[in-house]
């Protein structure tokens, strides 16, 4: 009859028992032939598992992964540059619009309201600029501005996704 459970034998093999329990198991193993043969086979399985060799992957594996790493890095860089270029263009156009508005407002202000009272002049200039900006958001202005912005976003989006697609294809092509 087995005196030692499989659980105990496994923990004995792994050295998971305290010294008292370890001694107790060792004593039982000395006395009991059945337990000893179960233990010995379990130990053999454990020893053989320890001898299991790792599998070897093809020699070109590292080069293939590194090519993918570089391809992905390059694609990320290209995307970053693309986003940077597009945002610069948007910012540039935005600055032009603001510049034109301020310039127009300033010119009309100088022609009509110049009084040499700086505070008053400055406030009236700001009001003028504000009214010109509000013109952009008037029903007519907003539709023109919105159309141009949407067109810009659509064109940018198209090129951005085309760029993403081509970088993915390149990525898969390195296999």
């Amino acid at each position, binding site marked *: 009859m087995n005196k030692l459970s*499989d*659980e105990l034998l*496994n*923990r004995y*093999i*792994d050295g*998971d028992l305290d010294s008292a329990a370890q001694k107790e198991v060792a004593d039982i193993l000395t006395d009991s032939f059945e337990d000893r043969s*179960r233990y010995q*086979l*379990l130990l*053999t*399985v*454990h020893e*053989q*598992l*320890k*001898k*299991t*060799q*790792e*599998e*070897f*992957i*093809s020699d070109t*594996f*590292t080069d*293939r*992964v*590194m090519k*993918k*790493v*570089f391809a*992905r*890095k390059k694609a990320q860089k290209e995307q970053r540059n693309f986003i940077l270029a597009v945002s610069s263009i948007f910012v540039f156009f935005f600055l032009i619009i603001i510049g034109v508005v301020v310039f127009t407002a300033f010119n009309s202000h100088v022609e009509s309201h110049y009084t040499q009272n700086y505070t008053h002049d400055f406030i009236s200039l700001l009001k003028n600029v504000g009214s010109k900006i509000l013109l952009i958001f008037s029903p007519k202005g907003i539709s023109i501005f919105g159309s141009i912005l949407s067109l810009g976003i659509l064109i940018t989006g198209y090129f951005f996704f085309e760029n993403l697609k081509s970088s993915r294809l390149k990525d898969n092509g390195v296999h």
Partner: protein
Amino acid sequence: MKNLTDLEIIASVKRGNQTDYAIIIDRYKNKAFSLVKRILKNEMDAEEVLQDAFLRAFNGLNSFKQESKFSTWFYRIVYNTAISRVNSKKRKIENETASIDDFFNLESHLDIRTTENINFSSFITNMLEKIPSNYSALLNLFYINGMSCEEISEIMNISVSNVKVMLHRSRNALRDYILKNDLLKELI
């Protein structure tokens, strides 16, 4: 360069020396391949999944906070990538969740005697290829990768006691299979 620790190499990669990542690949590729192959039971899929895992690890290097060893962090990525592939391919989930004892009771797919000149080593290798993925992954991590139960629990996202239970069950099942089929004399 090859004598550097993982952390030193990673620091170098993070500084912009991307070619140093090749040292990490060379260091881990075979052990990681063994793990993935045993989970997927297919060499071609294993290579592809391992490539993906190495790329994921590279892209996620900045998120590695050194709370655990690099190897644990890396094998966790490898394990999760392999398991995702298994799930996406909708392989029989019963295989994943089935007990190893049930598996050994279905002896039809384990006809070990068909192999000529069988020895203990080839028997074990053969069994590792055939037992459920989670058990073969665990045995691989414990015996081939030399990881502790704590590290394995972190990689497989299960408790340490579950790791020990699975480890013990695997050994018991292998031993019982040998006894039941009277393979002992043939193997040794």
